[in-house]
């Protein structure tokens, strides 16, 4: 038994025995890797390709026997799993960095197993950099989700906020020929949308989930209409913003593999690098964040000590909307270069899942978003290497993981106590 934070970041501690569910899940998954990918695996070779052809510094590809590689990785994973069991029995939670290493290992084993004997090998740079770029809208959406749920407002409208950001950034960016104006316009538009959610939920006490769902329907309706009635006829002038230039950071971008993946990106990615730690810092290390969390955990107590509950909620939800707008802009001017109908395609709902998976904590949420980004690109990539198992099952995995997390199979998941509950000032 040991004192453990009950709600992450709340500095409240209580005697809680860490659940054995996480370690057991890790052990079972490592056995799957060891047995199915290792012992019963494929006999051919895997080649991990580390460098782009354009790069100056070429790393040789890493070629290894599939069964051998997966057996080794499986064994390491099993050791981590057993370590985690031992930690749990002694009353310590499995640290997140250990789970991150575990996931990385499992990912390599999966990639290797899928691409055994594939001619092009495993293109690590392609996979990792796309994972990051595809995760960006999810991360910003997730941050928006954290910002509103931490103050006690459930935000189902992330999908609508992303779509608003995507649409406005593309249109304004094209009309003004300035992508930065487009970016700011996207943030403002999504923030305005959030004020509707905020005022209806906070002032008029309308059921938050219903408002969220309906705002999504409204944004889909409006963008579809504007796209077909206005934008589509004149897409050269209205929907051709292009994308931000890639800005390689000097020196850092020269690092093999990681430099290419992390430091040769568009501004939207760098904004994420700044925003996530910033949000973490504000939420957990400043007075402002403490107040916000107090409002989300126990509004009555917060009110008693003189915090304006309604105002706090309103501003956090609104600024969260601006962040989600940024995520929408990352879809268009940060990646694709034009707006398409309903292009957010459910990313906002995935962001909701990511918020839960990451336990309302910015860093963990980012890791969760990367997991989803990885599955999206994996689906694309796996179709090229024609793997032994249907791609649809791989697509399912992150959703199942989220389901298990929500159902409490993988550790405790506890939302802010007052999330979703309106507060009537007495």
């Amino acid at each position, binding site marked *: 038994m040991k004192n453990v934070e009950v709600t992450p970041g709340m500095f409240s501690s209580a005697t809680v025995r860490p659940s054995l569910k996480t370690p057991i899940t890790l052990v079972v998954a490592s056995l799957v890797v060891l047995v199915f990918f290792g012992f019963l695996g494929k006999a051919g070779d895997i080649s991990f390709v580390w460098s782009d052809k354009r790069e100056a510094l070429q790393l040789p590809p890493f070629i290894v026997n599939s069964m051998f590689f997966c057996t080794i990785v499986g064994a390491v994973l099993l050791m981590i799993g057993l370590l985690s069991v031992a930690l749990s029995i002694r009353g310590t939670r499995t640290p997140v960095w250990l789970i991150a290493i575990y996931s990385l290992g499992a990912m390599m084993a999966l990639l290797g197993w899928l691409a055994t004997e594939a001619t092009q090998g495993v293109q690590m740079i392609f996979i990792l950099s796309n994972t990051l770029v595809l995760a960006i809208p999810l991360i910003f959406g997730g941050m928006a989700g954290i910002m509103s749920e931490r103050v006690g407002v459930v935000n189902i409208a992330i999908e609508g906020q992303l779509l608003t950001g995507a649409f406005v950034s593309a249109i304004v960016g094209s009309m003004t020929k300035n992508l930065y104006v487009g970016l700011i316009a996207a943030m403002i538009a999504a923030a305005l949308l959030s004020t509707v959610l905020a005022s209806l939920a906070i002032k008029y006490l309308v*059921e938050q989930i219903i408002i969220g769902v309906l705002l999504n329907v409204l944004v889909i309706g409006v963008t579809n209409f504007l796209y077909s009635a206005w934008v589509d006829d004149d897409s050269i002038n209205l929907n051709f913003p292009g994308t931000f230039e890639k800005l390689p950071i000097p020196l850092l971008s020269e690092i093999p593999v990681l430099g290419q993946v992390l430091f040769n990106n568009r501004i939207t990615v760098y904004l994420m690098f700044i925003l996530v730690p910033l949000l973490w810092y504000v939420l957990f290390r400043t007075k402002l964040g403490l107040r916000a969390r107090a409002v989300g955990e126990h509004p009555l107590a917060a009110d008693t000590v003189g915090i304006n509950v309604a105002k706090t909620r309103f501003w956090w939800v609104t600024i969260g909307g601006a962040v989600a707008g940024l995520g929408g802009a990352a879809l268009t001017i940060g990646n694709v270069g034009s707006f398409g109908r309903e292009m957010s395609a459910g990313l906002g709902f995935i962001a909701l*899942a990511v918020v839960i998976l990451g336990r309302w904590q910015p860093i963990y949420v980012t890791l969760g978003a990367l997991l989803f980004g990885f599955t999206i690109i994996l689906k694309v990539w796996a179709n090229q290497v024609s793997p032994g198992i249907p791609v649809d099952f791989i697509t399912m995995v992150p959703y199942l993981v989220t389901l298990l997390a929500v159902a409490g199979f993988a550790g405790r998941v506890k939302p802010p106590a007052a999330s979703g509950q309106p507060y009537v000032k007495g």
Partner: protein
Amino acid sequence: MSKKKEVAAKPAQDKATSVLHEIMAGDPVRIALSVLLGFIIGAIFMVVFDKSVVKAWANFGSDPSMALSTVWWTIQDGYGALFTGSIINFGADSFVTAIRPFTETLRFAAPLIMAGLGVALTFRVGLFNIGATGQILVGLAGSTFVATRLEMPIIIHMLVAVFAAVVCAMVWGMIVGVLKARTGAHEVIVTIMLNYVALSLFTYLLREPNLLLEEGGGGTPKSDNPDDTARLGLLFGPDFQLHYGLIFAVLSVIFYWWLMEKSTFGFRFRMVGHNPSAAKAAGIKVENTFVWALAISAGFSGLAAANQGLSVDGGLTTSIEAGIGFDAITVALLGGSRAGGVVLAGLLFGAFKAGSATMQVAGVSPEVLGVVKALIVLFIAAPPIIRAFYRLPAPGIKVIEATQKAKEEKVIK
């Protein structure tokens, strides 16, 4: 600790349910005003983004009457086309073609009504089931397997296929109920996740040659056409596309009405929806009620699935779901979760779907109907907006009572 939390949550929860009840008990005047305002704003959208109107207004100084009349004609063209496409075509040369639009509205409305009833049922129990999409997809898998892989005599084949859709969907819905009852997982997240899982699962099944993939099919996930013995037959002969799905819709409306208003089962559902703690105190097993409510709700979605899957021409793809699961939420909200309301809401949205094609032909983007639809439901669900717009008095008593109660409870604490 959990006990403490419950107490803190209580007043707020009561407040929330009272707002939900206000939405459900929507009076006809407010609904009519919401629909009207939705159409008015839709007209503004149509006019502002119409090229001929913009051109006419550019010459407003020289020809103001022209500018005003183009506005009128644009609105008339748009909503006129919606009317001809969904209710009666007065310009038609025969009776059959004149009333065909209305039968099309019925055809589009049937699955919306069935899935809408499912969502409405869970609203009455105080749950937010946004999993109709996934339940429809799983139901489609069941009915399509029966309809394409098994051989049975006519009519029996169709009934078995419908039954398969209902059972598969119910199992899918039960998962939500069990997870909610056993682990306390929030049904919104569970249903969203299950929607995606169902989509992947259905795509996989459509790819698998031993299960649903069409004969001689390749990489694209697509099934065969359902066997002729399993198809939902046409109701009024080959002149109309309306099929037996409508009969199932009518039966499910009657069943829903009986279940919710007349049966003890429905009484329990409503009781849990009004106040779960009171229901528990009265000896109702709230958890079991959740499981049953979600299962029966999914059964309605399964009927919608059968309606789609057994009337299709040229095989199924994943697009057969056609957004019905999501529309069902708006149908249930607009219909106030009552049988009659859901029918009217389903007919309105069915008319929107039926009228889209004629609006397209008339040169008006039918997407404007998506805006109208969203606005109407938003106005219904958020009574303060519509009250502010028409300067209606607040319903007062109910809300004040709830606030008072919340205050008192806080004081006691």
